[in-house]
Structure formats: structure tokens, C-alpha cells
């Protein structure tokens, strides 16, 4: 039993197509867990099941072992931050933040104290008496966060909270969210489609696809060691080719070239993949050794800090990013070195 448990959750709107299929997820106390995936993968649905805005067709949702599946939203005491911020336009910032406390019938002076404290923490003390439309996007975001946190929720739920902000502000805000989350030690679930944002903020990441969690690990493990082809593609692996096991740790490609790798989740997996930036381009070599491929440069694109090459090889087109000063031109014969420790089997 973890702090939060989702057990065999199934959600279907029409009874035929499942939005979520037998989804299981366990979250430890105090952690920030991200749900990462493309749009339509079910990450927001998962968050809404946790919030209580959607009741699952099957399965159980538990916090500290207590089954909350049937408990209505307003009794769960979870703080939620929406993509659109969802501030109450007719209330001032102070009233927005104090909304939840007022419902809890706390004494006025306590409400005032807690609200002002929270506005202080989020750097909004000067804006207490303004209305939401008088604030910038980043400030509104912080109001939404303050409003969710002031009720001292058991869980903090964030639904793509940064996607309406510009790039620079987004980076500041995610740092700020992380800081506040760690200071308060509040267990949080963060939904996003942006892998960089997700990796920088999360203790653990659940990569979702078509209603199932494909991989649930720390950001480092997911980045370096994706479990499935979908996860690999989603986080930037580009080159995929079939491999067959020849002997212990040695695999053969369809054209006969041999590869060694130490990085297989299961020996049955037979697709090799590598990031374009992990391949090294070499001068053409007379003799082909293990983990190298002959090829011919087809297209060269300048990316700023490196070049991207599209290389035609016996295994098909391979994308390579190479920052070395020697630039190869289209038509050059080259050799690709695929390091053993960077070649992943999925």
C-alpha cells in the first residue's frame, strides 16, 4: 500500500471504447509524480478520476488505504490547478484564495491570516485586492496555486498548469512549483505533454499511451532506458531496426551486421533504437567491426550547435546528430559507430 493507489481503473464514456484500461498507479507520500503523454492518451482523464470529477467504471482509488472511489469531489479535500487557471472572475485575489476556507466556516481572522500567508509565499501580497483580469498569466497561475494550497489539501493536482505561459515564464514557474511542493511536502500529480518540463520537475514519471501506463520510473531511467518503442519515440529516440539474438549479448541486424548491447529490458525484445545524438560519425572504414554501420550521407541540416545528417545505410535511413567540427557533405561515405551502452532494445 502506498499513499495513493489506483487499482485496475477503467473508464469508458460509451461502454465500448476504454479511455483508461486497467490502470494501476502507486504514489509515495511527498512525491511529485507526472503523467506524461500525447494528447488523448488519458492523462487528464486519470487526473480527473483522482480528483473525483470522473467516476471510473471499474477499479478503486485509495488514499492511505481508504477507498475514495465513491466519495464526491467536494469531500475529497484535494487542491486542483487547471490549465485555464479557472479563477473566479467576480472575486478579488484575496477572495479567490480564501474561497475554500470560507466554505470550511473558519473564523474570519484565521482565514485572513492564512490567505495573506499564502499570498506572501506565492509573491502575490501586493495584488490581494485586484481582480483576476488585472493580473498577468504568471500571476494568475500563482493565484490558482495559492487557492489550491491554502486549504491544506491531501493531494495537489496540476492539469497542464504551465502550457498557457510563454517559454521563459514556464521555466521559472516550474521551478517555483517544485520549490513550494517540496517545502510543503505535499504529494502531487502533474499532467503534461512536455517531456522537458516533466523531467525537470518530477520524482517519478508515468508515460501514458492509449489509456495505459507504458512505463513508470524516475526521469533518469525513462530518459536513458525506455521500456517500449512508444516511450522511446516519445522521448526522442529516432532510429529503429530489427535485431535477432545470436549469442549472449550479441545481436544481428537483417543485413548481417552485429551489435552488442547491455541494455535490454527482456531478451525477447527485438528492436534496437538509439538517439541521433548518441551515434558517432567516422571516416569510411575498410573493415566493418561490431557496432558499426557503413553509410552514405544524403541530407545535412545545420542545427546550430550540431549538424543533423540523414544517412542511408543497409538498415535504412538513420538520423545522426554530430557536433564535431568535421562536417560531412551529402554524398560522403561514412561509418556510423553505435556505442554499446547507448543502444537500447525495446
Amino acid at each position, binding site marked *: 500500500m502506498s499513499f495513493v493507489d489506483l487499482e485496475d481503473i477503467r473508464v469508458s464514456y460509451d461502454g465500448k471504447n476504454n479511455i483508461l484500461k486497467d490502470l494501476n498507479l502507486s504514489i509515495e507520500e511527498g512525491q511529485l509524480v507526472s503523467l506524461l503523454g500525447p494528447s488523448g492518451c488519458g492523462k487528464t482523464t486519470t487526473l480527473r478520476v483522482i*480528483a*473525483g470529477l470522473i467516476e471510473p467504471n471499474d477499479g478503486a482509488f485509495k488514499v492511505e488505504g481508504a477507498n475514495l472511489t465513491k466519495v*464526491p469531489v467536494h469531500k475529497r479535500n484535494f487542491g486542483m490547478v487547471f490549465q485555464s487557471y479557472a479563477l473566479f472572475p467576480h472575486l478579488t485575489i484575496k477572495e479567490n484564495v480564501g474561497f475554500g476556507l470560507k466554505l*470550511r466556516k473558519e473564523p474570519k481572522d484565521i482565514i485572513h491570516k492564512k490567505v495573506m500567508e499564502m499570498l506572501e509565499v506565492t509573491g502575490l501580497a501586493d495584488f490581494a485586492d485586484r481582480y483576476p483580469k488585472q493580473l498577468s498569466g504568471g500571476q494568475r497561475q500563482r493565484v490558482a496555486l495559492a*487557492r*489550491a494550497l491554502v*486549504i491544506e489539501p491531501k493531494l495537489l493536482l496540476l492539469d497542464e498548469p504551465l502550457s498557457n505561459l510563454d517559454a521563459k515564464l514556464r521555466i521559472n514557474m516550474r521551478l517555483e512549483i517544485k520549490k513550494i511542493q517540496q517545502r510543503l511536502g505535499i504529494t502531487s500529480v502533474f499532467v503534461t505533454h512536455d517531456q522537458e518540463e516533466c523531467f525537470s520537475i518530477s520524482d517519478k514519471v508515468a508515460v501514458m499511451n492509449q489509456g495505459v501506463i507504458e512505463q513508470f520510473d524516475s526521469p533518469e531511467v525513462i530518459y536513458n532506458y525506455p521500456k517500449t518503442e512508444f516511450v522511446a519515440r516519445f522521448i526522442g529516440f529516432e532510429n529503429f531496426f530489427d535485431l535477432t539474438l545470436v549469442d549472449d549479448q550479441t545481436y544481428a541486424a537483417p543485413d548481417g551486421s552485429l551489435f552488442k548491447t547491455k541494455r535490454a529490458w527482456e531478451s525477447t525484445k527485438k528492436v534496437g533504437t538509439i538517439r541521433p545524438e548518441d551515434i558517432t560519425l567516422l571516416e569510411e572504414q575498410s573493415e566493418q567491426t561490431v557496432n558499426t554501420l557503413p553509410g552514405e550521407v544524403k541530407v545535412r541540416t545545420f542545427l546550430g550547435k550540431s549538424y543533423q545528417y540523414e544517412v542511408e545505410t543497409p538498415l535504412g535511413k538513420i538520423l545522426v546528430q554530430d557536433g564535431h567540427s568535421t562536417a560531412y557533405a551529402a554524398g560522403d561515405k561514412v561509418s556510423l559507430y553505435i556505442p554499446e551502452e547507448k543502444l537500447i532494445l525495446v
Partner: protein
Amino acid sequence: MRKQRGLSIFVLLVFIFLCLPLIIVTVTAFGENPSIQFPIEGFTFDWFKKVFEISSFIDSFFLSLQISFLATILALAVGVPAAYALARYRTPKTAWLKSFFLSPTVIPGVVVGYALFQFIVVQLNLPIYQGLLLGHFLISLPYVIRVVGSSLEQLDFSIEEVAWTLGCTKVKAFIRVVLPNITSGIFASFMLAFINSFNNIPVSQFLSGPGVSTLPTTLMNYIEYNYDPTVSALSVLLMLGTIVLMYLIEKTLGLASVA
């Protein structure tokens, strides 16, 4: 910007065409001659005095006021929740329902009036007052659903969901978060539905009965037998009332948000 002379003249002509009849009616209300004429001879306020001396005008005015007010309140009580449901749960079916609710504004008034007459008076055999009220409620409902609906469509319903997560029940969230943000729509739909109901003739004509007659129908009946400027004077008073109402709407919301 270059002036479009031709267009300006055209707009002016349309404007005159729209306003001239109203101006003529206004002028005729002050004529001394006991039958309506234009231009007028002499100048008098007598016809305005006469409006208040004819008891059927006064009675039907208050009846109209009462029917329109009650009908609009009823339409709000039914229409606001309906508009909320239509905006909140959007499916192909609700789009169809929405068109259905707006249909009384598309069907010719006479048809609506006759259909209601057949149903309310002939089939249900309701007392005249209640029947009239029901009819006016039905013609007011589309305005409420349309106007409140459009202000609900601009509402971000996640504010309602946030309210739930902060501890509001669904009813509480509706009252504390949704209602305060659609008050302008509710007010505007009230004005529109009220004015429309107050001016309605086809439905009232079919549903009126002895002793229960709205102001516009009384006015129509009066013109059939009397062609004196009292009707003009009454029309001027009604125009004034409408102008005041419109001014209030403009001041509080702007007419653009109503249309």
C-alpha cells in the same frame, strides 16, 4: 478615411424610413381634430388625458404588466437551468434540442397563437388568465434560453469544477460561482423577454377572453371602432417606456450584448 457619400445617403434613407412612421404617430398625438390627421391642426395634450380616462386601457395595461412579468419570471426559472444544461453537456442531441427550444421565434406568431389556442383553450380548457400566462411563458422561454445560453457558452466551466474541489456542492457552486458570472445575461434576457411579451399580439389575440385582455389587443380593438388620436397618445407613451428600458439596458450592459 475617405467618406463613402453614396453609402451615407443610403443609410440616411433607411434611417428615415424606419423613423418616419414613429415620428408621424408622435405628431398626430397632439392634434386637436378628433380624427387622426397629419399634419395636425392646433396643439393639445387632451388625448394623453383621455388615455388615462379609458378604464379598459388602464386595466389592460396592468394586466399586461402582470402577465409579462410573471411569464418572464417563469421563463427564467425554467430557462436558466435549461440553458445551463444545454451549455454544460454539449452533444449532438443537445444541439438539436437547442434549435427546438428556439423554434417559437421562427414559427409565425399567428401559427403559435392558433396552436396554443387549440391546445390551451380547447384541449386543456384552462381558465383564460392562466392560459394567457402559459402562452406568454412559452413565447418568452426562447429568449431566456438564447441569451442566457450565449453568456453561459462564454463561461469557463472549470471555475465550477474548481469550486467543487474547494468544497462546494453542485448547487452551491452554481449559486456562488456560475450565477454571479451570468447576471448580465439573465438581466438582458429578462428585458428582452419582457418587452417581447408585453408587445405580443398574435398569441394574446388568440388567448384573450372577456375581461382578460392585454394592452396591445385592447388597443387593436379600440382602433376598430374609434379613429381618434388617443391611440397615438398611447403609442407615444409605450414608445417612451420602451426607450427608457432600452436606455437602462444600454447603460448597464450595452445593447450589443443583448442582440
